[in-house]
């Protein structure tokens, strides 16, 4: 099949990886075969559970408790000698010599993937000393060099810092420095930018590309974001349910996908372009609708004080004089990087964090005005029935010890107006509305996938017939195709029930798709507000422009991030 077999650094044939479940072994990766060429970027895509991470870990023999149950993994060195990784023992000296030296790996969550109790330097130096015959001083010098290579400022001092003293992007850089400290021939990057902001993601992608060129590495890049694939891949492998559906050059996969599933993935990602035609967000309705929520000069500072005798107070000015309006029936998006104050803003609006000054005038269903920033405003006026929240993490925002019925019915019981039978009927109709069958009533949240859980969260928010739903990164934790299903569900509910949404997100494409107007936040300041189309196509502020420039495109022919 390959015309230049010598050029392959890695040849994977019929790889199978199994996990032992109740004494039987279930293969979660089945007959996967592919080649990795010297110096290329191979992107492996697929939704969570498709086996892409397990495959990558099997290449390094760190898939445990999973085991390789069949196939071969040939690692070639430039002289043409081969080593069959699949035949080695996980713990063997030969395998350990490959790990970290010939193959390096970068993981998704840079915070939890670095040891919290060791300095960055100690962790990098350790890798170098494992594979190179060096003194501590020499290794330290090489570690500083590794940090310099990933453009961490002041590497001489940064080397003695701990991971929690770095920002997310810097942590991922340190992680890359560690993986590359022995200049491996292959870098495996497992969703390295999924947990990062778009701007940081763009920086990390550029960095990986540059290092790849400098060191002549091959990169296996695992992701579920087709935009990232379009930006960086030479070739793409699509995985689904443990099998490799297709593999080919990026342009071929994007323009003439063979597998229907590849078409589906690309279609789902095309939905969230920031420039394309969208049903919403072009212009505002001609008739000026009423204002539902009017936030004026909201200011909020976090304070922390410690010590008895020598007091010390730390302050963080999280929201600086923020003013914005939400109109009846509109979807308002709030975007910004992490730390921009977008979540703090919505939490202040529902009274979860007390604001220092300012007003948030909310006009209720019966036409009365309330200031949401007054202490306990939501509870006192019963507004917590009109304003509901949906949170980011569908795994931790549902009580694992409550059944679906209990979760959804709880707000109704608290309301105390209806009989048991009425509540049950209401819960069933809510489940139907969010597209879940009624036989799930007595199940617990762990039995559901991320998308289904988010549907349960939405049903819970809808149970008391709200007018405004605040969705804080509600689709960020979901895969592309599931994300679009949830957003479409939210649209349907809007037309059906006359809802308004405040949608907090860091993915501009998603916010553009879902919202009428977008507010851009940066370091606690509201940078600009405008219609979604205006913000995305004709931004007036530099910060907004930089945010938009960092969004990956969807077409491998027109790369946005990696010019030259």
């Amino acid at each position, binding site marked *: 099949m390959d015309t230049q077999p010598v050029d392959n650094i890695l040849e994977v044939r019929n790889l199978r990886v199994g996990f032992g479940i109740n004494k039987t072994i279930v293969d979660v990766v089945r007959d996967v075969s592919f080649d990795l060429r010297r110096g290329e970027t191979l992107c492996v895509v697929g939704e969570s559970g498709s086996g892409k991470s397990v495959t990558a870990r099997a290449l390094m023999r760190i898939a445990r408790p999973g085991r390789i149950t069949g196939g071969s993994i040939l690692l070639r060195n430039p002289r043409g000698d081969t080593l069959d990784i699949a035949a080695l023992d996980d713990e063997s000296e030969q395998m*350990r010599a490959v*790990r970290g030296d010939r193959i390096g790996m970068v*993981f998704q969550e840079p915070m939890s993937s670095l040891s*919290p109790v060791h*300095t960055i330097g100690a962790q990098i130096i350790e890798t170098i000393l494992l594979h190179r015959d060096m003194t501590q001083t020499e290794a330290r010098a090489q570690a500083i060099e590794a940090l310099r290579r990933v453009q961490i400022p002041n590497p001489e001092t940064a080397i003695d810092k701990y991971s929690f003293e770095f920002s997310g992007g810097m942590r991922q850089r340190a992680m890359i420095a*560690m993986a590359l400290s022995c200049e491996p021939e292959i870098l495996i990057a497992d969703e390295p930018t999924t947990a990062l902001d778009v701007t940081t993601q763009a920086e990390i992608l550029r960095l990986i590309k540059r290092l790849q060129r400098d060191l002549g590495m091959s990169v296996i890049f695992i992701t579920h974001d087709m935009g990232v694939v379009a930006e960086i891949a030479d070739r793409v492998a699509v995985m689904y349910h443990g099998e490799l559906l297709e593999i080919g050059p990026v342009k071929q996969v994007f323009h003439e996908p063979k597998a229907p599933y590849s078409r589906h993935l690309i279609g789902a990602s095309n939905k969230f372009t920031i420039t394309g035609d969208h049903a919403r967000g072009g212009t505002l309705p001609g008739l000026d609708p009423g204002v539902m929520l009017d936030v004026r000069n909201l200011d909020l500072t976090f304070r922390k004080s410690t010590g008895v005798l020598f007091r*010390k107070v730390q302050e963080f000015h999280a929201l600086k004089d923020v003013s914005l309006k939400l109109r009846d029936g509109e979807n308002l998006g709030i975007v910004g990087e992490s730390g921009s104050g977008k979540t703090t803003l919505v939490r202040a609006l529902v009274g979860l964090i007390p604001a220092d000054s300012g007003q948030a005038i909310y006009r209720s269903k019966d036409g009365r005005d309330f200031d949401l920033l007054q202490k306990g405003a939501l509870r006192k006026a019963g507004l917590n029935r009109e304003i509901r929240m949906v949170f980011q993490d569908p795994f931790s925002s549902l009580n694992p010890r409550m059944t679906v019925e209990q979760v959804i019915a709880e707000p109704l019981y608290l309301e105390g107006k209806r009989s048991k039978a009425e509540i049950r009927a209401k819960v069933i109709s809510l489940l139907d509305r969010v597209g879940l069958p009624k036989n799930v009533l007595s199940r617990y949240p762990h039995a559901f996938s991320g998308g289904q859980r988010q549907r349960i969260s939405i049903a819970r928010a809808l149970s008391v017939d709200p007018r405004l739903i605040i969705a804080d990164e509600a689709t960020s934790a979901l895969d592309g195709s599931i994300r679009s299903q949830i957003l479409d569900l939210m649209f349907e509910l809007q037309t059906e029930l006359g809802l308004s949404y405040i949608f907090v997100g860091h993915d501009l494409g998603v916010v553009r798709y879902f919202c009428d107007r977008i507010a851009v936040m940066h370091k606690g300041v509201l940078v600009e507000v405008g219609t979604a189309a205006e913000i995305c196509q004709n931004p007036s502020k530099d910060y907004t422009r930089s945010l938009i420039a960092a969004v990956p495109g969807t077409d491998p022919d027109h790369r946005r991030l990696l010019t030259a």
Partner: protein
Amino acid sequence: MLRFIANRMFAMVIMTLVLSFVCFFIIQLPPGDVMTAYAAQLAAAGDSSSADTIARMRAAYGLDEPFLTQYFIWLKSLLSGNLGYSFTLQRPVSEIVSSRIGISLAVELLAIVVLWGIAIPVGIYSAVRRYSVGDMFATVFGFIGIAVPNFLLALLIMYIIYLYTGTAVDGLFSAEYVQARWSLAKLWDFFTHVWIPVIVIATGGAAQIIRILRANLLDELNKPYVVTARAKGMSERRLIMRYPVRVAMIPLVATVGWVLPTVISSSIVTAIVLNLPTLSPILLRSLLTQDMYLAGALILFMGLLTLIGTLVSDLLLAWIDPRIRTGMTDG
């Protein structure tokens, strides 16, 4: 860091004062006082001292003053270094305490060292080789250790030794060394006796620590940073000791603060069964006889140990966990 310690020292002074009040309050809590207990004792012995004598003694010791006055008198004498007088033992409290404190701390610290020395390796083994034969064994040992009362274990060991050697073991020294001055021979004699109480005290505690460490470490073993370390090509043994074990130890180190007082109070029954010249039996006796100055001094001493222990454990935590260290220097 210095600022943290200074803040903590200041808080400790205040806490000690509060503690002294609480101690005094507790020992005054049961109805009656040391004289009632004394009178009952005399009556039981057939000595019918008149109530008049008791009342005179009570007045002489200031026991009929109001509670607060008594407290301040006690506090004042404490601050001037006078721990008071034990009514039942007819000796100054400081003399009683100083005659026993050295031996007591030696036995208890030794027990703690043995306890951690057994518990930590076994706990790590149990977590890393979960459900292995060794883990099962440690688990069974753990539950036996928790379930069997210490005094029973002490009796059992004494019985077995008596059965095989025909000598009865009790105390920490053979008869000829009890009054003797310290010498190498006496030290050796001490070690031939001390292992029994040490083992008895250590078993119960070790079992608990094994369970806690096992659970903590199991949580840590699957964390992403362990996978990262593995991806570097480190050997399994080294990476487990360097990464997850260090993190799993953090909650255990936090318990260092009260480990000494816990051992003192939990070894009371063992100390009585084995007839050990430690502080524990004295503590029980002083509480039973409402010997208030002796009991007050001992409870206050244990409280002080807790405060110092907590400071030590916080400093240890700062040493092994940089996140806590930064919290201290920042905050």
